[in-house]
Structures are given as structure tokens and as C-alpha cells.
């Protein structure tokens, strides 16, 4: 088989994904492509996302037709040098076999697990090995599944750990005062329990403030800091969104709230709403979110702004915002090494995953 021929396949976004639907080809056959170039839109029940070319080359074959549904690992297209013979490409396509990809309950799939920290149970998902570990900390109302487009990519070359903050996802619902310090202490405890060592702390929104607080309080735990649409950089935040999210007990209300997180609200799928509802409907979840809103964002303002203390950190720090963030002002990135990504909202790491992954991977 010609090693310069590279398959573009349906990625596995999150544990439950088993297939993806090709919605639109973005480049023509014969186009020069490479990392950073989006070549095809694929939609799972969770979210739609563009797939970037994995390598530099020419898109020689668009194998999957628009509208087709393929299993995870299914062949979307083929990238190769212009010099590769058509016969070789045809042979490659004809001989392509979808590797069995573990389904959500399959033995090979990474599954979340639990660790006891200070009497509370925290859920986390670990993937990959080696490198400087990356720790992914979600935002208010989120959970470790928020990183489904990031964690597998980052884990290809390092240990990547995503966790559920106290009060969220599968973690215990006790959040104490609900302030950033309490949440940061829980994360620091988890890092010790998992023997993570120095890690690149990546936090989104509230999780960004938590990551920064961990880096400030526990310098020994932090190798770098990526603050994505981060809290903690200024007092403003859309307090009404927080209240709307807490109050949303039903699919329709929650869908409307989640739409505000994306530049393109159409990205909010029924599955995404259902997954958030599953977490929100656990006993104690609403109380925990309320406590965090009160403890971290009293009166719809951020209680803990650590801009001054970031200046004292000697580790690499970067801020990443979506240009169309409607929850936290993009202006909060000012003064930090920052990347403002066009066409993305508050959930920039989902909407522009490949770009965010490159930035995270490139910091250290």
C-alpha cells in the first residue's frame, strides 16, 4: 500500500457516537489541503463539525456522498500527493476496511471513572499517555463531555484528563460555598490523587478561573495555562444566562439557553440538550448550580478576578476566545497572549475544535 495515501475518516466524538452523516463537502477534488483547512462537514447526533485535512496533500477522492451516513472510522475521502496514480487510489478505496471502533459500551472504549477527593466523588476520563499531561476543566453547567472534540486529539500525544467539577456531571453535588477557591481545591485534590504532576491546565469559562486558581495556589501542579472563554479575567458575565440555565428544566427552555453559547445556535442538537438535562435532573444538581452561581457570580458579576495574579505566573499562559462570545466579553482577553477565533461563540473549543486543539497543543 502506498504510504503517501492518507484516508480521511469519520471521527469518534464522544463515547456514544457510532456514526456520522456527511452534510457538505467544503473543497473540490483536486484541491490542495492541509491542517487548518476544513474539507467536509460531518454531523453526529451530538453536534455538527467540520473536519480538517489531517495532512498536507491533495484531496484526490471524495468517497462519501453528501447525505450519506457512515460508521465511525468510515472512509470520507482520500488525500494523497498529486503524483500518486489513480489506480493506486482506486485500489486503496476498494481495499479500505473500517476498523472496528468500540461502541459506547465496548471493552476498548475509554470510560469515565471516579476518584474520592476530600470525601467527594469526582468523575474523570483519562486518555493517552506521556508528554506534559493536559487537564481539561469545563465551565458552569458543563461536564467532561464538553471536551469530546478536543480530548481525543490532545490524547494522541499526551496524557489528557477531563473531569467533572463538583456539582456537575457524575461528580458529587456538594460544592460548599460554590466559589472558585472551593472548586479549585477539588481539582487540585484530584490532580494529587491521580499523581498527575505538572500539567497544562486548560479551563473553559468558570473552569478557566478554576484552572488559574489551581495554578496560583499550587504552582507545583501547573506547567501551562490555557484560558478558554475564561472567567476570572474581568467582572462582567451574562448573569441572566446563568439564571436561565439554572431555571431551564425542560428541553425547549434549555435548547434556547444553550443556543446562546454558540455562534451558530443550530449546532445545539437534541442529544446535546438531553445530555445536559440528564446531568441537571440529578438530585442536588440544581442546588449545586445555584450555590455556584451565588458563590462565584453573585449578582451576575464575577466575584473572583485574578488578572493581577496571573502576571506573577512564570508559566506560559494564553487566552482563547470566540469572537462572538455572548457570555463573557472577548475584551477580557486583552493584556494576555490571546487568540480571538472568528465564527465561534462561547463554546469555541467545540465550534472550532481543530484550531483550539492546535493552540493548546502548541503552548508547551
Amino acid at each position: 500500500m502506498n504510504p503517501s495515501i492518507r484516508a480521511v475518516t469519520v471521527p469518534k466524538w464522544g463515547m456514544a457516537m457510532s456514526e456520522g452523516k456527511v452534510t457538505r463537502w467544503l473543497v473540490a477534488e483536486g484541491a490542495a489541503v492541509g491542517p487548518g483547512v476544513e474539507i467536509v462537514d460531518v454531523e453526529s447526533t451530538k453536534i455538527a463539525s467540520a473536519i480538517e485535512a489531517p495532512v498536507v496533500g491533495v484531496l484526490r477522492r471524495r468517497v462519501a456522498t453528501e447525505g450519506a451516513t457512515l460508521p465511525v472510522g468510515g472512509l470520507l475521502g482520500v488525500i494523497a500527493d498529486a503524483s500518486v496514480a489513480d489506480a493506486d487510489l482506486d485500489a486503496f478505496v476498494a481495499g479500505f476496511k473500517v476498523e472496528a471502533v468500540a461502541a459506547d459500551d465496548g471493552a476498548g472504549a475509554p470510560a469515565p471513572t471516579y476518584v474520592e477527593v476530600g470525601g467527594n466523588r469526582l468523575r474523570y476520563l483519562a486518555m493517552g499517555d506521556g508528554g506534559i499531561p493536559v487537564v481539561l476543566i469545563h465551565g458552569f453547567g458543563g461536564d467532561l463531555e464538553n471536551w469530546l472534540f478536543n480530548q481525543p486529539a490532545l490524547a494522541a500525544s499526551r496524557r489528557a484528563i477531563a473531569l467533572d467539577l463538583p456539582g456537575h456531571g457524575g461528580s458529587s453535588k456538594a460544592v460548599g460555598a460554590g466559589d472558585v477557591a472551593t472548586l479549585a481545591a477539588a481539582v487540585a485534590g484530584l490532580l494529587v490523587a491521580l499523581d498527575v504532576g505538572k500539567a497544562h491546565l486548560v479551563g473553559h469559562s468558570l473552569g478557566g478561573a478554576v484552572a488559574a486558581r489551581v495554578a496560583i495556589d499550587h504552582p507545583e501542579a501547573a506547567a501551562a495555562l490555557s484560558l478558554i472563554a475564561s472567567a476570572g479575567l474581568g467582572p462582567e458575565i451574562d448573569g441572566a444566562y446563568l439564571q436561565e440555565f439554572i431555571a431551564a428544566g425542560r428541553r425547549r427552555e434549555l435548547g434556547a439557553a444553550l443556543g446562546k453559547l454558540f455562534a451558530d445556535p443550530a449546532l445545539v442538537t437534541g442529544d446535546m440538550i438531553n445530555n445536559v438535562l440528564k446531568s441537571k435532573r440529578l438530585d442536588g444538581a440544581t442546588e449545586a448550580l445555584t450555590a455556584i452561581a451565588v458563590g462565584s457570580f453573585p449578582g451576575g458579576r464575577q466575584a473572583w478576578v485574578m488578572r493581577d495574579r496571573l502576571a506573577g505566573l512564570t508559566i506560559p499562559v494564553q487566552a482563547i476566545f470566540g469572537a462572538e462570545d455572548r457570555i463573557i466579553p472577548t475584551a477580557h482577553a486583552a493584556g494576555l497572549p490571546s487568540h480571538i477565533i472568528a465564527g465561534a461563540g462561547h463554546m469555541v473549543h467545540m465550534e472550532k475544535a481543530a484550531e483550539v486543539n492546535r493552540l493548546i497543543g502548541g503552548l508547551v
Partner: protein
Amino acid sequence: MARKLTFRQAVNEALRQEMRRDPTVILLGEDIAGGKGSPGEQDAWGGDMGITKGLIGEFGERRVIDTPISESAFIGAAVGAATSGLRPVAELMFVDFMGVCFDQIFNQAAKFRYMFGGKAKTPVVIRTQMGAGYRAAAQHSQCLYPLFTHIPGLKCVVPSGAYDCKGLLTQAIRDDDPVIFFEHKLLYDVAEDVPEEQYTIPFGEANVVREGNDVTIVALARMVSFAKTAAETLAKEGIDCEVIDPRTTSPLDLDTILESVRRTGRLVVVDEAHPRCNMAADIAAQVAEQAFGALRAPPRMVTAPHTPVPFSPSLEDLFVPSPEKIATAVREARAYKA
């Protein structure tokens, strides 16, 4: 933490966890422990389907009460106890037995709040099994939820899987109104991811099981999995079905159904109950009334026939709606030309 639980285990866990949380929750019914007054084991059965197995061991005879075969007495007692400080969960072994206790449900429990000028609270749950496919024939196989849905004052829950079952049953027990909780007996062994933690699912919110744009399929209880199977078959033919599981028939989330039909223009309702005055007829009528302009084909109803449930396997298999019948109805709705 989510792990696979069968529907049966989900009912048991919902009861166990809520009984731990709330000391006013009691269970009563026939053989729900099993062996009371008999020389052998207590907890011999845990209900005729083993749903409540093990609960008497944890909560004792005071809270897990085997009753004589006296449905009027124990269902009525559950109702009366609910007005007097308990949250009873009574098990009516088969919904077909409603004939011997219906007064206590529809004339008493359902009406207290209204008749008494809003001053009564009757937080009773009546769990009951329903459904054909068990070769149990005419008096043990019916899907009688339409009869209960008809009665103002009752809430009716028809879960289609273990996850919904646990959340809806927990909600039912915490709910302050009388709730009839229908368990399809052929779902008992079907497993799904179910969180260990307690959670509630609000009544009156449909679950959109599958999103699609060509035809809306509304299905209840066991029929939801049949509708999903049909939708998968139809997807291969290029027909994109939306599958909606109302989860509760009272209250009914008509908004989600209407929203879907306004998009697809086509409605197929699948209901294992007999065809007259059932949920299929009710939903089709309400959609016709409220979204007539959006309909591009007449609503189709896939239901059991207007016969008692037959015994012979060859007949019973004909009686129950099938994925094939659903797919045929969808194709016809899609092909319809005015």
C-alpha cells in the same frame, strides 16, 4: 455513575432509593414480598414479576405490605393513606384488574382535589403492568392507559426504557397528584444506561428519540423501540423519521408533537391500545385540529385491532403492531397525494 440496568432493576432501584430518602413511602400489593402467612420464605417472589424483590429485607413488613387479594381494599387504602400523610406506592398486578378497583382510582383519588375545592392532596402512585406479547391472553395483556388518561385528576406515565423509568417513577412518588405508572411487561428485561444517583424527569415532556424531517412517528412504551426499528429501516430508503415518545399521556406534551408535524407535515401514531378512543386517536385528532394546515397527508394510526388480546401466539403476534406495520404506514403517509 451510569451502568446498565434492566427496566425491572430500574423500578426496584427507584423504589429503594426513594424509600431510603423518604420514610413516608410505603409499598403495598399482592405478593410484593411473597410468602406472608405461608410456611416457607418471606420475599419468596418480590411481586409476580420480581420487581420489588429484596425491599422487604431492607424496609420490613411495616413498609412493604403484602395484602389479601382485595384490590378495592388495598388500592383504596393506598388512596386513603395518601390523604393522611403517607406516599404509598400500590402495585396493581395487572392493569386488567382495574375492573375490580377502578372506583377507588377514578371516583375517589382522581376527584378529591377538585371535589374538595382544592384542599386535598393525594400523593399516591399505582404501579401496574400492561401489554401483550406474554401469551397471557385477554385478561392479562391489555394496554388500558387510554381509560385512565381520560380521567381528569390522574397523571399517566408510560415509560419506554429503564432510564426514563427510574426518573419518571421517582418523580411519580414525589408528585403530589395521583399517578398511574404503566410498566410494559415486555420491557422488564431490556437494559439501558441508568445513573446510580436519583433523578427526576418532569411529566409532560416528550422525549425526541430520533430527529428527522420527513415523517413524525409518535409512539408509546414498547412501541417506541418498534418505531425506532422502523425508522432505521426507512432511513435506508431515504425516509428520515422523527420519533417522539410522549412518556406521559397525562399530561401530554402536544407542543413537541405539533412542532415536529409542522416541520414534517406527516404524522404516524403508534399505540398498542385498542383503536377506539386511544392515544393514537386522541393525538391524531388534536394534531388535525391544531396543525391542519401543516399536514401533507392524513394522520395514520398504527394500533392493535378492536379485539380482545388473543391467546394463540400466531394470533397475538398479529394483534401487536410491528415495525413492519409502522414502516408501511410511514411509506403510505410519505407517498400520499391529495
